[in-house]
């Protein structure tokens, strides 16, 4: 029962953190003010650079 209660409260706690996290990500892409194609291109190039040094799971 106590476990249930603490789990319940923890979930409540994360509602706000989830909102903040999602906002941060969405504002990150909003604020860069790049055209969507340019943004995708940048992401692709960054990925390519990282791939040169590290192994990346393509599906992730």
């Amino acid at each position, binding site marked *: 029962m106590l476990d249930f209660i603490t789990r319940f*409260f923890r979930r*409540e*706690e*994360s*509602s*706000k*953190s989830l*909102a*903040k996290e*999602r*906002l*941060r990500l*969405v*504002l990150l892409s*909003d*604020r860069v003010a790049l055209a969507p194609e340019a943004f995708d291109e940048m992401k692709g190039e960054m990925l390519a650079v990282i791939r040169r040094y590290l192994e990346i799971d393509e599906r992730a």
Partner: protein
Amino acid sequence: MGRTIVITSGKGGVGKTTTTANLGTGLAEAGKSVVVVDADVGLRNLDVVLGLENRVSKHLLDVIEGKASLDDALVRDRVRRSLHLLPAAQNREKDDVPTDAMAALMNTLAERFDFVLIDSPAGIEKGFRNAVAGAKEAIVVTTPEVSAVRDADRIIGLLPPDVDARLIVNRVRPALVKKGTMMSVNDVVDILRLELIGVVPDEKEIIIATNRGTPVIDIEGSETGAAFKRIARRLLGESVPIPPLQERTGFFDRVKATLGLSRASQGQRTS
């Protein structure tokens, strides 16, 4: 020269019109001459929120197009004689309003009134640009929700650099913030990085006030009304601290307070 302040948000339904009506009322109450301008052409609502809908005859576009004088279009509040409404046209579109003419009209109003409060439409299109055109200051209204904060961020970026912008966080529910369900005011300010001019709690009085067409400021004991009054005083340059949010005390809170069990009983309550 009076101050021209646009009330804007990006997202619809966060409380721009209610904020405009209540700040206008609060400033008039403080003895200032005020005109509230409905810039939401085609979807006017400020008249209804102020309970002045039956007295609207001419509107903003009539004035701009020279079909009516400013005095014909202005509706004067019956209770607070220094409060005036310049209604929007309901049967026209936002694109019908030339931006230059709008800015010129706001200047004319600023020569006559201490405060010109412009109720901006939602969106980032011409209606918004027109509402901002004549303004030197902005009040950005948001709520502690992802969509509202995102749109506020966008709007802040679209405000001209010489416009002095401040933030109102509206519809805060203290009980939910305390539980961690809702983002707090600090969370929102952290993200938007704008000077906070007020925090407005959500409560049922606002619904009653809107239904009646009276400003919530007039409803006795309303925390929402008190918050708007404080914001009006801050606009006048008074230093009024933003009190910590107070939860409405229910039956159990009172029992707990009596028994000395709740935090409320330890002197944390403020008003």
